[in-house]
């Protein structure tokens, strides 16, 4: 709309958590660019570091975690990692909207949505609170809700899908143009999920946003995202335009993952589970490729050398085997 959608450049981001076994990286050396006005989807299994990455975008990794290296450049805001205090607080909400995991609990259970909206306005020095409420009602109406009623409700009076829409409203009402959605539809049923995804797409287009959607469900990403990034064990193993990545995955993990998705049509016997199990923070290999334990294309080099993310056309893949093949 008024403002050009900003771009986001994540570069060499590493986030570590302090555990009894020392500081372990949950996100390791991740570089990712969110093109202005695009929807980028990140998929990965539980514990692969998606939420951590998402929080890093707001420099909001919770202790005992911290960003240990890298930068997150956002147009018009600079490097978020360097921000702190009031500056950072103002950036959150105004510049970057965050939509919480469909968790039923992103709202204060004791206050009505409207009151929380006003709190938000006051926090960001909005003078025209009436205008804010009007804007909120409009947004809610846009998402198919009765704005006045919703603002008068407490969290427990809203259904899961409604709460999620309220979450989106709160992320956008201050005109943020970078929006991060962490598992926006987990725990919602299919129909509601489809609704939310539709809304995300529409609102994104209307308001000129740069959007990051995080999910473990490839279907969700496929439905909304222009670009898709796959995380495994804290690493970004492959990224590229959604259709391409889905249509012809290159990284063995991406391939395995897509193969493992139960499909509604087609030959069910084609589907295969990946062998082994996903790593946890403690079991991620310290060096070498994080995926090698479950990889069919494992080579000797995988044990010692962490594969670089290599740009291949529209895509980036971090795999020795793929790189070798490419070069061959």
């Amino acid at each position, binding site marked *: 709309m008024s403002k050009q959608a900003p771009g986001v450049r994540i570069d060499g981001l590493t986030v570590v958590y302090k555990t009894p076994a020392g500081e372990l990286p949950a996100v390791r050396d991740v570089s990712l660019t969110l093109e202005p006005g695009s929807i980028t989807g990140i998929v990965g299994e539980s514990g692969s570091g998606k939420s951590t990455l998402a*929080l890093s975008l*707001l420099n*909001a990794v*919770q202790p005992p975690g911290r960003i240990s290296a890298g930068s997150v450049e956002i147009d018009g805001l600079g490097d978020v990692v360097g921000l702190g205090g009031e500056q950072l*607080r*103002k*950036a*959150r*909400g*105004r510049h970057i*909207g*965050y939509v*919480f*995991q469909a*968790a039923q*609990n*992103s*709202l*204060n*259970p*004791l*206050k*009505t949505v409207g009151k*929380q909206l006003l*709190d*938000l306005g*006051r*926090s*960001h020095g909005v003078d025209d609170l009436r205008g804010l409420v009007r804007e909120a009602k409009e947004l809610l109406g846009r998402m198919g809700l009765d704005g006045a009623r919703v603002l008068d409700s*407490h969290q*427990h*009076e809203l259904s899961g899908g409604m709460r999620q829409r309220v*979450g989106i409203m*709160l*992320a956008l009402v201050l005109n943020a143009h970078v929006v991060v959605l962490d598992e926006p539809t987990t725990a919602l049923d299919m129909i509601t999920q489809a609704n939310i995804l539709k809304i995300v797409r529409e609102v994104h287009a209307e308001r000129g946003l740069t959007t990051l959607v995080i999910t473990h469900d490839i279907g969700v990403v496929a439905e909304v995202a222009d670009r898709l990034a796959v995380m495994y064990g804290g690493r970004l193993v492959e990224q590229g335009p959604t259709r391409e990545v889905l249509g012809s995955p290159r990284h063995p993990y991406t391939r395995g993952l897509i193969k493992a998705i139960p499909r509604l049509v087609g030959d069910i016997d084609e589907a295969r589970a990946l062998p082994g199990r996903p790593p946890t923070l403690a079991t991620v290999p310290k060096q070498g490729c994080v995926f090698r334990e479950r990889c069919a294309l494992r080579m000797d080099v995988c044990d010692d050398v962490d594969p670089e993310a290599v740009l291949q056309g529209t895509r980036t893949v971090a795999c020795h085997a793929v790189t070798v093949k490419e070069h061959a």
Partner: protein
Amino acid sequence: MTVIARRLAGHLARGLVMILVVATISFFIVRSIPGDPVAANVQKLIEQGMAPQAAEQATRVLYGFQPKGTLWEQYVDYMGGLFTFDLGQSVTHAGAPVTDVLADAAKWTVLPVLAGTLLSFLVGIVMGVYAAIRRSGKLGDVLAISGSLLHGVPQYVLGLLLSAIFATLIPILPADGPVDILFEPGFNAGYIGSLVEHAVLPVATYALAAYGGWILAMKSSVVTVLGDDFILAAELRGMKRSIIFRYIARNAILPLFTILALSLGLLLGGAVFIERIFNYPGLGLLLIESITMRDYALMGGAFLIITVSIIVANIIADLFYSVIDPRVRSGEEVSA
């Protein structure tokens, strides 16, 4: 609103049943106490130099009424009396109905207990928030351990220590009753000042005794709330610290209301010690006195009224809770 009204009705019904049960308990306990105070008093008066016959006569006058009828009839009588606030006659306070004696004493217990609760609640929750926020630091450890200890240590230990320090070693505070008689009762500075001065030690003991519990409860409650998503969500929306703090506080305090009643019960129970140590003429002292004097009606009454105040406090706490928690207000079941 109807939900609150229904809750209130439920509470009142249950409270009434409780009161009847407690009254029944105290009635039967009192009746089963061994020893015939009448016979014993005769002996006592003889020792004081009274002629045996005169001693008997004086005792009969003192005890006046003798329980009449079967135990069942007495019971019915007693329970009937309850509804007209008639708890019988006190023996030691001859001629005074138990209700009057209790009413006199009640204010000296209820006010300091409430003051102590309020004080400890306010200080405790603030410290509890700190203990939660600084839970991995030194301050948090100190607050938590001191909270546990204070919570763990029985009230009489605190009372004795305070009394030893402030009334004996450095005698700066009185420990001898509720007010200095030289001040004319009424709304004047001297009288009120004296009241306050005398209340400092008992209130401080109540407050210290309850403080540990609050700090612990608040700490764990805050830790729980801090882990709740909506706090992180508020932070990620860039809400002001002060607003987030209010969010935390309100959500964390809420569950404490369920403990409030329990803590009041504890304090009222502790009144027995504290009033004995500071010679504060409240219900606790009355209870001890009635026990040592074998004033059965008074004893039953004191016990009953202590219980009733806890029941009432319970109801108030719960109603308060339901008023400020919208989930309860709208009739949803909340697990506390």
